[in-house]
């Protein structure tokens, strides 16, 4: 029924879907933060141009912010499109793990203050 996206599948296979990291400094009493999965092509969301799409690799935020963004849909492997760069950054989160390349369908918009957007790392940039 859906057209499986080759690029999404490849990305999904290649990246461990552990996304959310926490600042150890902000949570001194808790267990050390999980290791951040390094990917060679990860760049800051704010380095994209408006209209470009990309895939979320990981975020480097404090626990509360990271949990909220994750629940809002800005999570590992989520395909996003940058709609506006600046203050705020506006991204469109394209639903589902295979949503890239679809026209129509599902999406939600999230406005992010620039300091948050700086700490969202993305890869597989297109457009």
């Amino acid at each position, binding site marked *: *029924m*859906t057209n499986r996206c080759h690029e999404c599948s490849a990305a999904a296979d290649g990246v461990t*879907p*552990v996304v959310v990291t926490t600042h150890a400094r902000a949570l001194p009493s808790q267990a050390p933060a999980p290791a951040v999965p390094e990917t060679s092509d990860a760049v800051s969301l704010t380095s994209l141009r408006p*209209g470009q*799409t990309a895939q979320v690799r990981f975020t480097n935020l404090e626990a*509360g*912010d990271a*949990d*909220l*963004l*994750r*629940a*809002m*849909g800005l*999570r590992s492997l989520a395909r996003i*499109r940058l*709609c*506006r760069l*600046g*203050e*705020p950054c*506006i991204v*469109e*989160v*394209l*639903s*589902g*793990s*295979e*949503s890239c390349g*679809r*026209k*129509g*369908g*599902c*999406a*939600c*918009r*999230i*406005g*992010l*203050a*620039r*300091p*948050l957007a700086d700490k969202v790392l993305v890869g597989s940039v297109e457009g």
Partner: protein
Amino acid sequence: MSTAASQAAPSETGVPPGSSVRPPVRFALIGNPNTGKTTLFNRLCGLRHKTGNFPGTTQEARIGTVRMREGTLQLVDLPGIYSLELEQSEAEVCRGVLAGTLAPPGQKAAAPDGVCVVVDATNLARNLVLVGEALRRRLPTVVAVNMIDLARRRGLVIDLAGLESRLGCRVVVCSARSGEGVEALTEAIAAAPVPNRTPPGTRDGLERWADEIYDQCTSVVETGPNAVAIGVDSLTDRLDRVFTHPVLGLVVFAAVMTGLFWVIFALAQVPMELIDRVFAAASDWLDGAMPEGVIRDFISHGVVQGVGATVIFLPQICLLFFLISLLEDTGYLARAAFVMDRVLRPFGLPGHSFMPLLSSHACALPGIMACRAIPDRRERLATILIAPFMSCSARIPVYVLLTSILFAGRPMMAALAFVGCYALGIVAAMGTALIFRRTILRGKGRPMALELPSYKRPAFRTALLGTWDRAFVFIRNAGTNILAIVVVLWWLGAYPHVDPPPEAVQIREQAAAADPEVRGALLEEAERIEARHASANSYLGRFGRAVEPVLRPLGYDRQLSVGVLASFAAREVFVSTMAVVVTGSEDTEDEGVVQAIASARRDDGAPVFTTAVCWSLLVYYVLAMQCLPTLAVTAREAGGVKWALLQLGWMTGLAYVAALAVYQLLGAS
């Protein structure tokens, strides 16, 4: 059964054979924010609901009833949440209700008989994560796929049977806005079984589970040139660029707010005059129908005029709530929050503060409660402390009274003065926030993340029902608390009875011997002197005299001192207090309440409401903390009485100094 117009067909795939079907009594309604949950609640329950707070929390609970063939269903509308696991007050309330440890007001704490998860058809993947969390509660569950009409326009096809099968519960597509599928939803709720699937327990697993179901159960078809597509530069992008632009965004915001208040004043005038006439006529009728005496005065002047002086502002309050609700529904307010983030940041406040501060323009109580959504503690405290500076609806009666006196017959000037009051409150709030954030609440701010809902035509029905709620609360308050205060004030103003002063006795003697042409005038003069003497020697008059020295530098006489002190419990009481005080000393026949108050005289015969006094009072009421319930909520929300005392001391001190400066400046010129 893969069709964009997926009809709410009876479920066959999702319901396991032999699963226990319990007749539901109470269902909890949960969902992500912006899924149309409240619109659906209103569609299902209409006016058959009541509003209150969950005990021990600041989260509003709306409990409604739905009449069905099988009986009555009770729906509990829970706060919008992104996840049941988040450390937010909204999620805490939802967890408590679903676990049976928290119950709506007036009910026993027990787990609901089922849960209805409202999901947005155009954002299904994310919403399914919350569905998974709900399914793990093992309660009879129904999933309402709302906004199906919008999903169709985007070419989204939902395999309803497949979705039911994979979720293991009933799924109904609907559009709360148009009413489509709502009847099928109530039928599904009535027969909801316990789900026969258990989603993964880990967050990662749940997200993968949701993605898989989304991929398997949805597809996109080409829907022609008019389809609303995503992933391309759309009208939404262009509107967002304007509404969040550093300069254009502010211009639009200022224009929207100006238009909002202009509409309120333009449309409220006629119903306000009507209410004024109705209460005046009721008072006149009572005066004619009842025998002269204390009881007649109490009912006619105390109760009717006192309550009337408050209820007269109901049209403005209704319009304010109605228009804010419409504006929120369009999707604009979320963009405005980011515009305000840029504006508020220099004062140490986040954009999150915008909605609490905007809500505080209606009432500081929900505004302060809404501060729980502000993640950072210092920013939250700063917002709580400044929220009462926003001009709430309780101040509107005072503003209207004073601007009407200042600019009688000049509505444009009155409107400008009104806007000035709002502006002064905002300026004071920002200055206070800046001071606090650089002293006792020093610390780094937390950046903002907010979902920007789709732009859409606002739902009038939802706005009307929300306005009805607020109006009902206001009327209930006017009919209980304010009425009680009015009655007490009337008694304090009417007792003890005193003998007429010698001056009045002398005039009456002169009147008895005078020609009939002048007799009437002399008797009127005697009555005026007697009434003023009685008022000055009443308990209220003595109380006013005791505190008058403190307020005299601000230009307030005994009567105004009574009004200011009486309204410490609630600002709007000022107008009704003045009505009682003034009608006890002046003949107000054939005059409206506002005119009667405006023509009030001091004991020495000078007018009470001079220009300098009016401006001084306006400034005082903009800045002063005159609301006991707000102080109580501040103490609770901020985590200590010391914050409430700081708020009281700071605001009242600032108000006193500012009002003093204004009076001295205008009075001297």
